[in-house]
């Protein structure tokens, strides 16, 4: 097994230094109108996502992690500041961004195959190309046997695979994941993490993962951003130093414990704050 930090030249972050998405002084305030009750949810946030990196965000509950994802995806407007993706200011969901949510977003009325093909058919991709890409995505996510099944016939983990395949098939250049494994058991989460890493390597996409699980953030990412209690701002960025070729077996690496401990060290105080307690 390649050890983290043993071969600095293989580190993926080094290979991709150009900025893929940039948030500049982004804040999000709910009820910002004069009449509404104000809730300062996020920011100000400055963040550069490097092209091809796997970036994870951890933070206490309610710190604005999901709001950050919504703003970056164009699902929510920042109250102040600017979001830029591939050099263009984000207004609405731009082409090239795929999102996987925590909740089951599979279409219960469509078979697995039709779920995965949905976006391609919407985009008017011809039938032969759609079939080719759907076959690949279904095979990649281990869904071949279930291609004709409906989501209700699948487990929660399998349904989440359907959602990932539906995103993957559109070949997004930036994949945003909002606690996609949050509702799954620990073993399934580790295995899904491996599949996510395989997907990331294969597609060369930039990935931002929102998670509350420190071990998941440590295992999967090149870099972890630690957020403060609400209003969420980044209080630390931790480089994990893992090689690009990695899988869930790195959880037994001593460096894994060191990175997770550092994250928890930063996060503990913020989590206590969000619970209304002090250290």
């Amino acid at each position, binding site marked *: 097994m390649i050890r983290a930090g043993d071969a600095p030249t293989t580190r993926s972050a080094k290979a991709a230094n150009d900025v893929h998405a940039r948030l500049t002084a982004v804040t999000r305030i709910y009820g910002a109108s004069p009449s509404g009750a104000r809730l300062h949810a996020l920011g100000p946030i400055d963040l550069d996502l490097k092209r091809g990196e796997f970036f994870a965000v951890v933070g206490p509950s309610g710190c604005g992690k999901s709001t950050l994802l919504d703003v970056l*995806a164009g*699902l929510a407007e920042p109250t102040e500041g600017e979001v830029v993706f591939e050099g263009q200011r984000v207004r*609405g*969901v731009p*082409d090239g*961004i*795929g*999102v996987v*949510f925590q*909740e*089951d*977003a599979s*279409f*219960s*009325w*469509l078979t697995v195959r039709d779920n995965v093909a*949905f*976006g391609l058919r*919407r985009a008017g991709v011809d039938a032969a190309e759609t079939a080719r890409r759907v076959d690949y995505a279904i095979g990649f996510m281990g869904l071949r046997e279930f291609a004709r099944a*409906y*989501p*209700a016939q699948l487990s929660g983990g399998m349904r989440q695979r359907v959602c990932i395949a539906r995103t993957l098939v559109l070949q997004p250049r930036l994949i945003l994941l909002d606690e996609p494994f949050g509702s799954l058991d620990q073993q399934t989460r580790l295995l899904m993490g491996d599949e996510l890493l395989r997907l990331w390597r294969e597609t060369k996409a930039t990935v931002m993962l929102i998670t509350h699980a420190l071990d998941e953030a440590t295992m999967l990412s090149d870099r972890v951003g630690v957020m403060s209690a609400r209003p969420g701002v980044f209080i630390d960025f931790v480089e994990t130093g893992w090689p690009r070729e990695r899988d869930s077996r790195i959880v037994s690496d001593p460096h894994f414990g060191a990175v997770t401990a550092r994250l928890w060290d930063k996060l503990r105080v913020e989590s206590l704050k969000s619970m209304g307690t002090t250290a």
Partner: protein
Amino acid sequence: MTREGWIRLGVVLAATAALEALCRFGAIAHTVVLAPTEMTISLWRILLSGEYNADILLTLRNVLVSSAIAVGLGFALGAIIHALPRVRGAVEPLLASYYSIPTFMFYPIFIVIFGVGSQAIIAIAVLLSIVAMITSTLTGLDRIPPVLRKTARVFRMSPPARAVLIDLPAAAPYLFTGVKLSFAYALIGVIASEFILSGAGIGYSIAYAYNNFSNQRMYGLMLLVIIVATAANTALDAIDRRLQSRLRR
């Protein structure tokens, strides 16, 4: 068929057999209730003779027209009420208590407006069935998971595309429950209205047979109504169960 299905069939067959025995052995007078086998023979003769074909077709047509109006209008009203939260807050308690009002008492109003005939019958049947569709539409639209709306935005779908490709299929199981109920209420509304508002139709024919002491015809036609209602409900129920099975566990 499921075990419950067999038990259900057994209960119906046992009740029918018991009624047959009670009628055949004179426990129930022949002038009061006919034995089920006699009802069946009477219905067979009615269908063979064709003398009630026009009435049967008229009733079925009125039921279908009433259901279609109730489903279409009920869905549209439900969607509008769902889109206007203040209106919904105002009318929802009225919808909830709607079925406590005996709608049939309004029949003189409909006679004044439409006269005696199909239009008044359809109006009463629609009045009786539309609220089931409105409430099912509200439930269906409420139950669309918010994450599907977010997903539609990620797919950069326009509001009409989202409505047709996401909202409608996601709400379909609940909407179909409304369709099923609307049909059942429309059938009740049409047949019951024909007793008082019509000179034709199955309901009128049953009342006519009753007034003329024609038990054979009355029970034959009543059996026909039961068969039509059961067959339609079974068919709609099969579709309903298929849609419900696709809902998330």
